[in-house]
């Protein structure tokens, strides 16, 4: 048995808008291993969240996975019945959401919500589940956990709620944890705590983490490997160091250049020119070519393939391919 937790191959997800199907994810493949954090970065609307929802099987009604394969610990998820999927969800893969303020049921105590999954998936008794929940609350650094168990979400701050969400998902000991911008709604100090916590839990439990963010600072802190998405396609993939030190794709370059640098004298922010395409927009060839300073005729015609330039460093760009011939 390999240590691959999640294997996504040639995933295509479409959304139906006004009775027409539009691809939102265009053929994405990636793997996540045990004890590894894979960060997915890209602009809003590039398909990060849709990828996670495809994996979880929680796409909204107008979305559907059209082709490809999603394997969790070697088990194919696509085509599973809702009942089977319900068994896998929570138990083998958990998800943390962006908005901790609204991710907990406002009418139930923290304790109830924490023990619900334990009792359902692991068949624990009330007392066992309670003890486990308390121990996980302590693990995520929540003081007086017994008191907290009796409280309602409205009595807790955003950082606390996010840690409770993490405790809730981790207590089921999933092989895969999907974190959809879990730190975006938190302030920076809390953000740091949550990131450290995720890192520690990952090492303790050998979980694979799929971390969605558009904050490159967060990526640098937490990621082992990075995938850069643009308009539903993977444009670059590599180890964190490779991406930050040697970004090859013009879009990745643009992203990194757009981060304001407080150390330099230059205070100007350099955005990537142009606007992000809507999913309903038809663009031939490379989806990035209308905004790319190096676009050639070939970029307008031909969809670039992801090629490996360094071990583990994949880029889908004609310019990079030609330069490295």
């Amino acid at each position: 048995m390999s240590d691959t937790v999640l294997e996504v191959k040639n995933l295509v997800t479409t959304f139906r808008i006004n009775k027409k199907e539009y691809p939102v994810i265009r053929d994405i493949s990636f793997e996540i291993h045990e004890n590894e954090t894979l960060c997915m970065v890209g602009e809003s609307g590039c398909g990060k969240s849709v990828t996670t929802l495809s994996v979880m099987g929680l796409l909204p009604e107008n979305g559907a996975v059209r082709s490809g394969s999603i394997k969790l610990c070697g088990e194919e998820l696509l085509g599973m019945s809702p009942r089977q999927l319900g068994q896998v969800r929570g138990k083998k893969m958990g998800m943390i959401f962006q908005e901790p303020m609204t991710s907990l049921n406002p009418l139930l105590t923290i304790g109830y919500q924490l023990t619900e999954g334990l009792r359902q998936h692991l068949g624990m008794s009330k007392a066992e589940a309670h003890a486990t929940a308390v121990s996980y609350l302590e693990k995520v650094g929540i003081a007086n956990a017994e008191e907290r168990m009796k409280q309602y979400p409205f009595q807790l701050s955003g950082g606390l709620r996010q840690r409770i969400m993490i405790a809730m998902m981790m207590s089921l000991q999933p092989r895969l944890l999907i974190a959809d911008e879990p730190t975006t709604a938190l302030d920076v100090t809390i953000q740091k705590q949550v990131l450290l916590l995720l890192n520690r839990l990952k090492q303790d439990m050998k979980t694979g983490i799929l971390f969605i963010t558009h904050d490159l600072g967060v990526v640098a802190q937490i990621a082992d490997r990075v995938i850069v998405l643009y308009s539903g396609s993977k444009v670059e993939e590599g180890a964190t160091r490779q991406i930050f030190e040697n970004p090859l794709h013009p879009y990745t370059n643009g992203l990194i250049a757009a981060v304001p640098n407080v150390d330099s004298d230059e205070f100007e922010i350099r955005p990537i020119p142009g606007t992000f395409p809507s999913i309903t927009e038809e663009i031939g060839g490379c989806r990035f070519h209308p905004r790319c300073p190096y676009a050639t005729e070939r970029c307008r015609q031909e969809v670039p393939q992801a090629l490996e330039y360094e071990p583990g460093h994949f880029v889908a760009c004609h310019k990079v391919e030609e330069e490295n011939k």
Partner: protein
Amino acid sequence: MTKRPSFLAKATEKLLKNKLAALCFVLLVLEVLLLLITPWIAPHDPEATNAAIKFAPGFWAKFSSDPAVRASYVPGYLLGTDNLGRDTLSRLLWGGRVSLAVGVVSTAMGLFLGVILGMLAGYYPKLDNPIMRFMDLLFTFPGVLLAMLIIGMLGSSTFNATLAISIWSVPSFARMVRGKVLQIKQEDYILAIRSLGATDFRIIFFHVLKNALPLIIVIATMRMASSIISISTLSYLGMGVPAPAPEWGSMIATGKGFMWEAPELIIIPGVAVMITVICFNILGDKLRDILDPSLRD
């Protein structure tokens, strides 16, 4: 850490702070208590006729300046008697029991069906159209007409009237609950619960239902008022509670033949219906303000 007062205790506290709502609440509690102990406090058999004391006036006759009127008051018959010499007070109490019971039972039955249908329609888009279009069909009948149709088919009895009224309340419950479910379904915590692998059944009938409960309490209270009006209307038309048994609506129907000689025969049950219905409506309205601020205009 302070202990959080329970949801119900908090709502009651807020309710009692509002004078009007508190008054309605107290009136309804008193009424329900009175109706509960009716078998022990009603002075006479509500169906016993006595030709000797037909149309006896009530206690107000004692304050009349006319000695003949004063003499016509029969001691023990506080609210007087009707055209058959039956005691109005006893009939009012026993009739109230029927009206209120029909109100409660039909609201509960309508609630049960309406909430289930509304939840399913709201949660499953595939069931939405079939269920809601059928509800629309029921909506097209004016309320009392639908009830009359059902009673016409089943025959007139208290149970059939209850059934008819409950069927009539199903569509409006279903519609309100569906709307609420559509809103709750979008909440992040529902997605979070789904990502934990909870079954649909559990999500619908525990998490969603719990969050829809304030709305359900409010519409049930409001519905009580219209159910009571409906049973009174049906009885007035002779399609509700069968004849000798007392009911507010049928008391008015009996009294309308003598409305000039003995107006109290329609005024007394009329006022009883009015107070009950107004109290339920005001209470429902205030509950809505307290429990579900999103419903406020």
